[in-house]
């Protein structure tokens, strides 16, 4: 086990984290996983804390996962969705943040359609900010739960070959996975049509291929990204059937891959578009286990950031002279 202490009040992305910090989250998640198997699925770790799920972009699964995680830690949870908030009336992101701070909340779990929004937000508030996905930038807890699942199934991350297939250009899941996996010593290959690999991609520690069979040949796991064909309409996008033919994860393709290849997907699934039903429900699939592990990973993250913030506040209070 690692001796690193977690000192960050926020979790904004995996790019900035060290290997030790990522390992600490995974180890903490392991201890929390057991809580969800108890008859009374609750520990008092965050009792008296308020967690606000602030979602500027519709999401059900991530929001629910965070909500369940917070509740199993005994926190009070408030959900704010953009449709019901004053943001539509023109409130700025920062005003929203300072208002939630004034409610004496402790943690904000934030989803936003603009890259960098969580970072800007965290600079303006004292409470803990957990990035639940910002634009195309990062989705750290998704990558952490993917990595947690991989580690649980395969016993290690170091030396694994992991292939990520899909719309790399617009994927925060891909970006966070590449940072996290590479820091832990995995070899990452991304596979997509040329138009979905963004300019300057060399900045990422990952191999690029446009040939799925090649990408699957050595893979210990394949993470299949959700394809959003309804996207902006400005950038070139492959035709749906053609995409499935060339990049869809099918039984035939899995049959040619390593026997125990793990098939992952962040959900929600587009059956028959990026993955066939047979594979999604087949024996290589760990998709539902990812969902279960998401709870443990998010419990770990909420716990660690809250603890770090408490520690910081305690030090600050000690320093403050008493009249």
């Amino acid at each position, binding site marked *: 086990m690692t001796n690193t202490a977690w000192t960050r009040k926020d979790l904004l992305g995996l790019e900035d984290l060290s290997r030790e910090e990522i390992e600490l989250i995974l180890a903490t998640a392991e201890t929390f996983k057991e809580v969800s198997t108890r008859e009374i699925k609750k520990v008092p770790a965050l009792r008296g804390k308020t967690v606000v799920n602030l979602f500027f972009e519709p999401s059900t699964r991530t929001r629910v996962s965070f909500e369940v995680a917070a509740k199993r830690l005994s926190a009070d949870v408030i959900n704010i969705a953009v449709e019901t908030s004053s943001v539509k009336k023109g409130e700025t*992101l920062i005003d929203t943040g300072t208002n939630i701070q004034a409610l004496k909340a402790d943690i904000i779990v934030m989803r*936003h359609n603009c*890259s*960098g929004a969580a970072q800007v937000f965290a600079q303006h508030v004292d409470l803990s900010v957990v990035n639940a996905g910002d634009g195309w930038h990062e989705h750290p807890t998704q990558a952490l739960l993917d990595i947690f699942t991989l580690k649980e199934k395969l016993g290690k991350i170091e030396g694994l070959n992991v292939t990520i297939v899909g719309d790399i250009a617009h994927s*925060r899941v891909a970006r966070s996975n590449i940072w996290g996996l590479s820091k832990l010593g995995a070899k990452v290959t991304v596979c997509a049509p040329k138009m979905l690999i963004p*300019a*300057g991609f060399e900045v*990422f520690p990952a191999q690029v291929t446009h040939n799925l069979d090649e990408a699957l040949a050595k893979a210990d796991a394949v993470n299949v990204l959700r394809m959003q064909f309804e996207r902006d309409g400005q*950038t070139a996008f492959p035709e749906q059937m053609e995409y499935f033919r060339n990049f869809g994860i099918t039984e035939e393709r899995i049959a040619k891959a390593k026997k125990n290849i793990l098939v992952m997907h962040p959900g929600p699934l587009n059956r028959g578009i990026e993955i066939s039903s047979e594979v999604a429900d087949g024996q290589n699939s760990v998709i539902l286990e990812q969902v279960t592990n998401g709870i443990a990973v998010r419990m770990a993250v909420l716990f660690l950031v809250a603890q770090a913030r408490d520690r910081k506040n305690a030090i600050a209070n000690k320093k403050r002279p008493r009249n």
Partner: protein
Amino acid sequence: MRLLIKNGRVIDPASKTDEILDVLIDNSRIANISKDIKNGSSQIIDATGKIIIPGIVDMHVHLREPGREDKETVLTGTLAALKGGVTSVLAMANTNPAMDCPESLDILKQIIKKSAKCNVYICAAITKKRQGRELVNIARLKKSGAVALSDDGVSVDEKVLFSKAVKKAKQSGILIICHCEDLRLSGGGVMNLGAVSTRLGLKGIPRESEYKRVERDIILAKETLGSVHIAHVSCKESVDIIAQAKKKGAKVTAETAPHYFTLTEEAVSGYNTNMKMNPPLRTQADRQAIIEGLKSGVIDAIASDHAPHTVNEKDVEFDRAEFGTIGLETSLSLGITELVDKNILTWPELVKKFCLNPSKILKIDKGTLRAGADADIAIVSADKEWTVDKKALISKSKNSSFLGRKLKGIVEYTICRGEIVYKYGIHR
């Protein structure tokens, strides 16, 4: 009123002067420049150890008035100019109303008359409301006092319309300034397309959106035998295209802004919206090309592209922030710090880029210290350092890309038409 500046290093590329001299100002004009001018009755400024240059001519400034007085006004913008040693600005046409008819120009001229603290020249629009559909009446606008035309902020997409504008501008003897951007290629991007935009997950603006339009505008200008000036050059390809065109004798001039020779796209890391501008900060190779272009003369002028925006417009998500940085107060210091101190340009070369060349391009009688010229002067302590501090900025908006940066060179005095209008830290 007579004013004598003693013992400064006078740099005036127009007269190829670079030596320790005295400058005598009489009645808003430069009366004499020579050694040891004796004049008992004058007010005297001791410029020993300081550099005396013509007041800077900043040919790309957004004063925002009329229309967006919350961002900047003619008063606050020109006060900021004086602090930066700038005595003449070219005010861009993207005001509200846009500078597309003599009546609008009259509004601005009134404001200038009432509140400007330095010379303000007016750049009128090329098309009505800057919408790229219908040409303005170029001859009338010229008559109303416009010294250049630009739809700055956007390019005139229609080829035929643009050609016609260049032709008419030539007939009227007025300059066309091109904001080179193909919006279809920019595609809603918010920073340079490349490694950093990919890492940050931000939508990129490809370099093609700039240089393909530079290419087009130069070709169209050539076909019509007119001349164009390319604003805010930011990428290598644009520099190359302009270099080639100049070699072939095309009548094209170009400017860049200090942020393009100082910063790169890396500055956007951390989602600092003060680093969001259009054209965007590019790569190190582009920055190098801009520096080479300044050195070789392909880029004629340095202009700030002073683009003030309110806190509300900048303190938001990167995607939603306005494009632009203010620059009037930092332009000269950046030139000194990044170009002269690093031995890229000599002092006289820097003065050319800031003063003489923009005056020539705009065909205005500024940018020189010869006897008889308007006494627009900046006196500079080239070695003094300062740190760009938000609170000390004069501009109404504080969106500077250079906040917290240590720069060399402060303006000790700014003299406009013979009057000391700024003395370090104090406006008069």
